[in-house]
């Protein structure tokens, strides 16, 4: 079965501290992995995806196939990073049928 697990509902850090949002997945095959973000009063939007291997707003995510994880990291959190973060997967062929985790709320305090 396809499943995405985000074990933390809330992650609270101080500005300048490192951040790691955890994501583990279950999938038979090689999925494509994504992080989506929803800022307050805004719509859900793509933050980054594994295949692009890029850093967006200082965030990076490394796919660890052995641990089936795709944790999101940022070395120095900013207040504007406060948002709801969703990890998602899809198969890597055909259309993009996203399976989302339950989300982690990141709160960055000054």
């Amino acid at each position, binding site marked *: 079965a396809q499943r995405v697990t985000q074990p933390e509902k809330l992650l609270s850090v101080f500005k300048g501290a490192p951040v790691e949002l955890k994501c583990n997945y279950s999938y038979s095959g090689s999925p494509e992995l994504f992080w989506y973000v929803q800022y307050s009063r805004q719509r*859900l939007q793509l933050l980054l995806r594994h295949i692009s291997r890029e850093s967006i707003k200082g965030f990076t995510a490394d796919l660890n196939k052995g641990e089936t994880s795709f944790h999101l990291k940022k070395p120095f959190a900013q207040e504007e990073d406060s948002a709801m973060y969703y990890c998602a997967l899809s198969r890597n062929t055909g*259309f993009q*049928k996203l399976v989302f985790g339950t989300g982690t709320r990141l709160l960055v305090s000054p």
Partner: protein
Amino acid sequence: GAGVSQTPSNKVTEKGKYVELRCDPISGHTALYWYRQSLGQGPEFLIYFQGTGAADDSGLPNDRFFAVRPEGSVSTLKIQRTERGDSAVYLCASSYVAAANTDTQYFGPGTRLTVL
């Protein structure tokens, strides 16, 4: 340009009633997706359209749910005999093509459905 729009933004209805939720995708996007997000959960896939046809409706929970996209643009999600458990935010997304590993889905603001 304009993003994905959804109407209404909020819908309150009574148990047993029929509702329609509308999605206007980004112009030129051929792929359209519907998701449902219950409180405290992530979005859950309902149905995917490529053009006018429903290519995958495996996420629709039962036959009370139906969606159409007659001209390959606007889509309507229809729910018959609503139940309290249908209360959720219904999200629509669109993308230019539907390639899994290169596609970017753009989400609308959602319709919050409350069934009393």
